């Protein structure tokens, strides 16, 4: 008798309870969305130790068409990495894909002034590409790579002149300094 009374009481309480299922569905949809979006944005940006600058301006990253070239730098004298391991070698990465001199030149030709989508409309800047290019080079990497990229960009059939070099603010913690 007592049990039946209790059940009756509970049934009336559950009538006013909310159904959580749609909310959880939506929250998980949002989580999935953020997982996918954050994965995409990280592909552009390789993990590097950027060099310091005192006069660098904040990078807003608001130019959607900007190209980002990453140059990684494994420590060549590091005994922990075995020779023959592909991680030993420096890589030029654009959107998570490795490039060499030849493929980078072809990639920039497709994305430079020869592509009608990326031409400056201003008549005083005729023959130039309106695309900007961010070079993110590891502080310990050789400058030769950056020099080569600058020279590829300056070629008249590419003509990308808006070049930016990524730097970082000097950290207070001195251990993080890019140094040999």
């Amino acid at each position, binding site marked *: 008798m007592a049990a039946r009374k209790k059940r009756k009481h509970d049934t009336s309480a559950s009538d006013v309870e909310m159904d959580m299922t749609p909310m959880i569905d939506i929250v998980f949809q949002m989580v999935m969305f953020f997982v996918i979006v954050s994965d995409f944005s990280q592909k552009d940006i390789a993990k590097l130790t950027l060099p310091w600058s005192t006069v660098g301006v904040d990078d807003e990253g608001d130019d959607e068409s900007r190209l980002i070239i990453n140059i990684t730098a494994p420590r060549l004298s590091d005994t922990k990495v075995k020779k023959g391991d592909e991680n030993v*070698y420096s890589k030029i990465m654009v959107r998570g894909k490795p490039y060499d001199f030849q493929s980078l030149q072809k990639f920039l030709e497709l994305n430079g002034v020869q592509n009608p989508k990326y031409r400056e409309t201003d008549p005083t800047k005729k023959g130039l590409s309106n695309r900007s290019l961010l070079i993110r080079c590891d502080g310990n990497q*050789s400058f030769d790579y950056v020099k080569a990229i600058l020279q590829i960009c300056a070629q008249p059939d590419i003509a990308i002149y808006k070049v930016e070099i990524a730097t970082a603010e000097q950290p207070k913690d001195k251990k993080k300094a890019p140094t040999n």
Partner: protein
Amino acid sequence: MDQEVKMDMTPMIDVTFQLLIFFIITMKFRTLEKKLNSYLPTDFGLNTSSAPVEENFITVKIRQKKASEDPRPIRERGSYYYVETEEIKGATEKEIFQKIYKRIKAFRDQNKDAKGKIDAGTGVPHYRVVSVLDLFHKSGFETITFVGLTVNKDISAGMKWWRKMRETLGDM
């Protein structure tokens, strides 16, 4: 009977919000970076002829130590710094950069049209070049040029140069 299998939703919602906050914070990562705008000259393309000697230029030259002086791979070795032809010496890199800054600042203060030139040899680490570039910016230079090497437009020659550079750097 239905009421006995009901789940407590609170921990799940807690975890979900933790995840949301985590992803929002990691997405903000890229705005923390800085950049140096270094627009290339637009009046001429790749200038393969040697640059004419101008009085307005002050050159900072950086060269890597030789293998006999430092056995490490080339880009992990120390560097020699020169302003014009004079070697700049110091106990630490910071001291050297301060001396270079004084020299180029004095040159700039005397000459408002002064232009900077950075001559970085093979294997010089990027951060040293950026530090010198930073010093030029700080002293008020508007035009800074890099001494280039002649990379041939011809792709096969370019690839040959590329392989040779990577071999020199020990990057192959």
